[in-house]
């Protein structure tokens, strides 16, 4: 029986190697990413928790089946995020899941807003939580995705490039456009409110 303490000091990549010899180690790898990936899936897809959990199971099984394809020169976290991203998009396309309103934590919203708005526009942050959430969720998926990875998951450009399988230059452009788009939408909402 493998104990959790055996894996505490091991890197993801070391656990991958151990998993290929003994599948029981996979449990510890999954536990490390369970919450993070579920959150990520929920945020990019806007689906119910139940649907997100189904997708997460699919992600873990896919990752396990493709473990021999994981290149130890890459980061495991980027690899599994990439699988989570593709599986979620694919479930969305197949309409296996239905969109719902998903709640975000205040700190996550603040992270995105602070990175998007300059000091003079901070007043926009007075918009209600619901209004901001609505705006973020209405952004095109490609924009929402990069904002979440950059400002909530805290990934750098190289990591986002590895997750979304796009060149770094494209990622930088997407982030800039996403910030611009969000800023515009927030301003519009603010103007609308002032007119009321």
């Amino acid at each position, binding site marked *: 029986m493998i104990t959790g303490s055996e894996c505490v000091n091991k890197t993801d990549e070391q656990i991958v190697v151990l998993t290929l010899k003994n*599948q029981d180690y996979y*449990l510890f790898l999954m536990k490390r990413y369970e919450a993070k990936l*579920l959150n990520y899936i929920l945020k990019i897809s806007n689906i119910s928790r139940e649907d997100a959990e189904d997708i997460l*199971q699919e992600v*873990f099984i896919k990752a396990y089946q493709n*473990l021999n394809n994981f*290149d130890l020169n890459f980061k495991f976290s980027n690899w599994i995020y990439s699988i989570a991203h593709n599986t979620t998009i694919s479930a969305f396309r197949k309409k296996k899941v239905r969109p719902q309103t998903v709640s975000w934590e205040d700190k996550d919203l603040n992270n995105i807003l602070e990175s998007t708005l300059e000091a003079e526009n901070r007043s926009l942050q007075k918009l209600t939580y619901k209004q901001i959430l609505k705006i973020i969720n209405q952004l095109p998926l490609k924009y929402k995705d990069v904002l979440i990875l950059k400002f909530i998951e805290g990934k750098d450009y190289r990591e986002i490039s590895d997750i979304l399988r796009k060149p770094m230059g494209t990622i930088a452009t997407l982030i800039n456009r996403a910030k611009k788009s969000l800023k515009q939408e927030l301003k519009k909402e603010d103007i609308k409110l002032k007119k009321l």
Partner: protein
Amino acid sequence: MKNISNKVLKKIRDNNIKPKPRWYFITRNYFIWSIFGISIILGSFAFSMVLFIIKQLDWDIYHYIGEGFLKTVFISLPYFWLIFLILFTGVAYYNFIHTKRGYRFKFISILLISLIISIILGTGLYFNGFSERLENVFLEKIPYYNRLVYSREEQWMQPKRGLLAGTIIETGLPENNFILMDLDNNRWKIEAGKVIWKGKMTPATGLKIKLIGTLIDDNNFKAMEIRPWQGKGRFIMRGNQ
């Protein structure tokens, strides 16, 4: 949520799910790289043919055809092979982005690199005489291939526009005239009294030539300039010297 990891591990055990073997991914990677390489090579074949067709056409005769230079270029471009070049470059791009690190490169970089490799290899093949051999194979084996490309034959078989090509079958007529069998096997009497012969050649039976001149009637053609079938002819000779 607590149980997701345990649930998945149980599923893996119950359904006896195993990681796909390493050789499967290695084979797949080799396959992707092979298709990339093959596409580049096929692209270079296509480019060598583009070069061959462009080089074999005479671009200085557009004013005889009565068209502008740009229109002549537009008519004469080897679209058949250009389409293949684009197609193979596309396939090379598609395979490259599916390699492990392919996605890290920009679309334009991959496209340009694939194209440049095809161009370099294709130029080498052209100078090696490969494209000429390939052209002959296509002409022999592929039905209607000659209709798909604007060939030298097509360019020079326009007697109404003053362009004619064929083989000399009889010489020694008065005023340096001779009899020519054109590429469509029609017999022509060629008036060549004041003709400019380009290239190191003398009129002789069996000589394949290109003629610029004026159509007199269905069987008579007045030549003003005669070139060897291959190339444009660099040395000028007058009369039947």
